[in-house]
Structure formats: structure tokens, C-alpha cells
């Protein structure tokens, strides 16, 4: 049921937290080669990037980033947050972003999952946030709305964000993975569903896609933990960003889907080492989630930029004194919106529905 989209409407943005992207890109080649790639190198990474031939891509590194946004602002883009620079400079409608330690997954029948095409299908079919469909995505092949689903809600709303999942190494936090050292996610759940309006969700940045034209600066490189590191167990930036996006989407009547597609996340790092190094993130969530649950955006906030600014101001007011990391996050969000206005070429024009 997806609309036919042109290949040149899509950018694949990869944040390079590790320098050797050879096997990553070669594994994804069948899925990626049609599209334009934006590779953003973590400004803290010292080694040269190793990128195989045959891709249509642009690579962005620290010197360029400093020139475009200023060296004081480029600190926004260190670590996993380097990908946001790619979102900023992209000129395409859709962005797909996958962590550089993830490979294509296989479905239970053994077929390789084309995560790109799946994300695009999610983004180009409506979301249904106002009423839960018990057969999940009603627009999937072989599915539909169930008895009792109001007809006036069946056209759905635009899907702005698609969050995929991960086989093998699930996106658990460090304490959980450390406790269940051998646990790997082997359950392939064959469903996509809309996260209901009003319901918040931890959106992992490992495997996502979004409508850049609609969401603009709603994904924010803002929450940088004091001990933030180069493993996902040592970050919460995507979780903060995702909560912001969900609040904005709920306010503007946009949809967020979760579920398929899966990627295969390779074993990497040591959760116990990560836990020893950085455990503040887990504690901070106790403040972060109630904050986002309580944010109310005013009716006058009709654009994404307005909404992000409101969230930033609320964060500064309500969380700023709890921990300096929040005051910094709020400032980063405002800086980001300004950057978007000056550098992000396609301005977002979503209005409240």
C-alpha cells in the first residue's frame, strides 16, 4: 500500500563511531547502494574512516562541521550524536539511520530483511494513534481494522517516525544486560504498530527512520551524559530525543510507529564495564520520564520549531536545577533549533492538525 517513492527522496545517514565501515557497508550494500549516503564521522574519532567503493556518498568530518556550525557548537555532535549533523545537512524528505554495528537481519523464513524498504513503507502508510487496533498495523498486507474500530479514525494520520527493533543484542540498558549476560533477543515479532497518542516510549536511535520534511529539528542532539561514551550503554541522547519527538508528534497529530524492521545488532562491548563507567543515565530517567509525561504544549505552538523551543524552555525551568546535564540539554535544544533555521535548508512547515 506504500506510495511509490523516488530513490532520490531518501538519505541514509550513518554516524561513524568506529572507523572501519567496510564490512558494515558491504553487508548493507544490496539495500543501500541505490541511495545517497551521508556518513558523519564522530569528531572524537582519530583514525581515518575506511569506506568501500561503489557508494554514492558524502562524508562529513570535524573540520567541515566546525566550519559550518562553529567549533563551540560542533560539540553537540560528538559520539553517537554525530548523526544529527547528517540530519541537519540532508536535503531529502526521508532519512534512515542505522548504528554502524548493525547488520541486515533475517526473518524466520530465512529471508534477508530489507530494513530500508520496510521503514519507507512504515513512513508512507498512515499511523493510527487515536485508537488501538488489536491486529496491529491495519495497512499491512492481510490485515485490516477490527470490528469496533471507529470508521472516522480509519484514515489515520501521517507517520513521521518509524522505530525498528534489534535481533541478537537487544537495546537493553547496562544493568539489565549485565544481569542477563547471555540473553539475546531471538524473538521475531512480525508486527508494526502505532504507539498510541499520549503514550510515551523509549525510542532507540539504533534503527530509525523519519520524515525530515515533517519533523525537521524535532530529533534533538541534546542530552549528553557526563560519562557519555562510545557504546549505547553509555548514552541516553536518543531516548531524550525520542521523548521530545513523541511529545511533539502527539501535539501536532503525527504518528510514531514501532516494530518491524529488525536489524541484527552485533555483540560489542561489555555491559559491566559500561555500568562501572556510566550509570548516571539510568538514574536520570527517573526525572526525565515524569518530565516529558507532564509537558503540555500550548495551542499556539503550531510548528515543530515552536514545539521544540517550548520543550526546551520547560526542561530548563523544571529540570535545570536538578542536574546541570538538563540545563545543558535545554540550551542544546535551543542552539539546535537556531542551527536548523540557518543551516537546515528545507524548513519544516508542519502545523497542528
Amino acid at each position, binding site marked *: 500500500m506504500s506510495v511509490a517513492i523516488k530513490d532520490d527522496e531518501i538519505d541514509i545517514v550513518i554516524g561513524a563511531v568506529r572507523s572501519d565501515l567496510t564490512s558494515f557497508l558491504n553487508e548493507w550494500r544490496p539495500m543501500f547502494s541505490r541511495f545517497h549516503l551521508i556518513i558523519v564521522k564522530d569528531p572524537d574519532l582519530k583514525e581515518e574512516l575506511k569506506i568501500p567503493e561503489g557508494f554514492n556518498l558524502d562524508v562529513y568530518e570535524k573540520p567541515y562541521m566546525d566550519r559550518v556550525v562553529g567549533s563551540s557548537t560542533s560539540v553537540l555532535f560528538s559520539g553517537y550524536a554525530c548523526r544529527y549533523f547528517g540530519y541537519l545537512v540532508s536535503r531529502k524528505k526521508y532519512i534512515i539511520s542505522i548504528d554502524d554495528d548493525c547488520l541486515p537481519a533475517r526473518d*524466520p523464513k530465512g529471508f534477508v530483511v530489507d530494513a530500508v524498504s520496510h521503514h519507507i513503507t512504515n513512513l508512507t502508510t498512515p499511523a493510527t494513534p487515536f*485508537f*488501538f*487496533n*488489536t*491486529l*496491529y498495523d491495519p495497512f*499491512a498486507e*492481510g*490485515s*485490516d*481494522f*477490527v*470490528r*469496533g*474500530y*471507529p*470508521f*472516522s*479514525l480509519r484514515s489515520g494520520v501521517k507517520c513521521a517516525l518509524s*522505530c525498528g*527493533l534489534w535481533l541478537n543484542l*537487544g*537495546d*537493553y*540498558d547496562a544493568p*539489565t544486560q549485565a544481569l*542477563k549476560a547471555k*540473553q539475546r*533477543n*531471538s*524473538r*521475531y*515479532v*512480525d*508486527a508494526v504498530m502505532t*504507539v*498510541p*497518542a*499520549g*503514550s*510515551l*516510549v*523509549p*525510542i*532507540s536511535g539504533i534503527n530509525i527512520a523519519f520524515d525530515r520534511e515533517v519533523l525537521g529539528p524535532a530529533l534533538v542532539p541534546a542530552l549528553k551524559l557526563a560519562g557519555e561514551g562510545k557504546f*549505547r*550503554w553509555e548514552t*541516553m541522547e536518543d*531516548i531524550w530525543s*525520542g521523548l521530545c519527538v513523541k511529545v511533539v508528534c502527539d501535539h501536532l497529530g503525527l504518528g510514531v510507529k*514501532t516494530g518491524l524492521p529488525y536489524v541484527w545488532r552485533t555483540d560489542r562491548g561489555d555491559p559491566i564495564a559500561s555500568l562501572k563507567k556510566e550509570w548516571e543515565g*539510568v538514574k536520570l*530517567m*527517573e526525572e*526525565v*520520564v515524569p518530565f516529558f509525561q507532564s509537558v503540555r504544549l500550548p495551542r499556539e505552538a503550531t510548528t515543530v520549531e515552536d514545539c521544540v523551543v517550548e520543550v526546551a524552555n520547560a526542561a530548563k525551568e523544571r529540570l535545570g536545577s536538578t542536574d546541570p546535564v538538563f540545563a545543558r540539554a535545554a540550551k542544546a535544544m535551543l542552539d539546535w533549533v537556531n542551527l536548523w533555521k540557518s543551516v537546515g535548508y528545507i524548513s519544516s512547515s508542519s502545523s497542528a492538525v
Partner: protein
Amino acid sequence: MAEPATATEAAAPAVALLKDELDIVIPTIRNLDFLEMWRPFFQPYHLIIVQDGDPTKTIRVPEGFDYELYNRNDINRILGPKASCISFKDSACRCFGYMVSKKKYIYTIDDDCFVAKDPSGKAINALEQHIKNLLSPSTPFFFNTLYDPFREGADFVRGYPFSLREGVSTAVSHGLWLNIPDYDAPTQLVKPLERNTRYVDAVMTIPKGTLFPMCGMNLAFDRQLIGPAMYFGLMGDGQPIGRYDDMWAGWCIKVICDHLGLGVKTGLPYIYHSKASNPFVNLRKEYKGIYWQEEIIPFFQQAVLPKDCTSVQKCYIELAKQVKEKLSKVDPYFDKLADAMVTWIEAWDELNPAGAAVPNGKAK
């Protein structure tokens, strides 16, 4: 193509969980042959059969099941004038079974639902999965992207606050259906051949504040936590509407569960739904509902229960009041329904006085 399991493929579990704490409520108007296939899974449990339609007809129950059976005469005898709240000529009458049960848990299933097979070909013990769902917490306050974190092989994802990981008590477990999906009449007419063959290996909590269409074909609940709110409304004979019994109950229980901090799960287990009812008959039953639900849904979405509604009965009476206030203008039917909701609570409290512990009813 989805296929049901055969009677020999279903293997009885080593331990029948909650054997003495759960009743299986089955409404029927034809026969109970389907129980043969469920025997390995159902035989340890007590059944409550609610016979709809002609009370002079004898419904044959397969040998070896421990059951009590109620027909319309029994319902009238037991409830007297309050029997008016129990539907006739509609499977909504099943809620009488919830009322007379003395157990903590109820599983209800339609008589055209059979044992399904999972993708590995194994027969699915739906009852066992429902029990697992009910006995593990729900997580309505924050969505877990790996679905039920209490399932084997799953957990809470990064970013899920630890203070929310204890979860809340699960009041309802809503199962799904392979083969004939639970579509409304218009959808059935447009897609007569569509079959649900997708096995989605997940259980999840429906978030707080979100309503859903609850289907009564494959449903389990904690009668002590939510029983009085499981009234299936006025449907069938003499009523302007049908096929909205479970929907109505589902909207009521979700509002109440959200208010009382209880959880509702949906997803596994699957059963195999074998019979597609006649879509033209369904259309006639449903068509008022299709219009009315456009008013009903906003009503439930906006319903607020006052803080002093601390029990299910109090919540339900308050909802009945609001139905009368706000939905009567849609159709006088809602006025009658609101009264029936109150009658139901009165009947429930009469049959279930607080603190009484009573043994099962006797088979006829």
C-alpha cells in the same frame, strides 16, 4: 495458511495452572462439540455453560467435563426481575456466567474457536498463556518496545525507568484469532476471503489512556479485580443492536482499569476461529453501532471518574450515570442500557456478597 490443531496434537500440560481458581464460561446455542478438541487443556477446569435461545433444547456436554449449565429459565429464576439486564438471543448472555462464578479468574471462549498451532506446528494451550498473562504484571505507563518485559527472553529496554518496572496488576488478557479475523460486517463484505495468517509472537500492555476494541471470543480476566465491569450490555432480541456487547464491555473496563491503575494486555494467545458469520446478518445487527460508535468513542475517551470511585462497582455506577447523561441524546437505547448497567451491579452484588466463599454450582 493457518490450520487448527487436531485433537490428538494438543497435549495436556503437566500442571493445570489455577485449576481451582478459574472458571471457563462458554455461551452456546447449538452444541459443544468443539470441547473435544480442547479436552487436554480444559478438562481439569470447571465450566459454566450459558445456554442461549430456546431453553427447552438440550445442549449435550461431552463426557468427563465438570460443569454447571444455565438456560434462560435458570437466569430468570435466579435473577427474578433483574434478569432483564441479561441479553437473550445473543452471546452477550455469557456475562451471566461471570456473575454466578465463584472463582477468581474467568476464561471465556466462543464455541466456534478451536486450538491453533504456532509457527513451529505446536498446538497452542491458550488457557495457559492467558494465565501467564494474568499472573504477570502489566506496564501501562510507558510503552516497552520489546513488548511484554516479563516474557521469557524479553526485558525492559534502555530508557525504561526502573521505578516503573514493577508494573501493575493485570486485570484482563485479550487473545487473538487466526483464520477468520474479527472484522466488522462492511470489512467482511469487502474482503470475504481474507484470513489472518500472521502469527505475531507478542503480548503487550495497552497503554493507559488508550481505548481498544475488546473481542469476547478469546478473553480472560481477573474477576476479583474487574468482574463487575464486564457487563456485556443489552443485545439481541428486542434490542436495536448486536455485536457490540464485548466492545461495550471493553470500553468500560479500559476506562475503569485506567482509573484504578490496573493493566490490560493484548496479543497471545491465538485460537483458531473457524466460522465466519453471515456478513449480511452481521450488517443488520451492527449498522446502528457503526454510527453510534462515533459518539460513543469520544464519550469514553473523555470520561473522567471522580477520585472517590475507589471500587469497580462505584466506577461502574458512575459510568452508568454518565452514559445516561451524555449518550441518551444519541438514542433512547442508551437510557435503557444505563439502567441495565445499574441492574447488573445490583444483581452482581446480590450474588456476590462481600466476603462469602461458596463452592461451585451443580451440573444439571
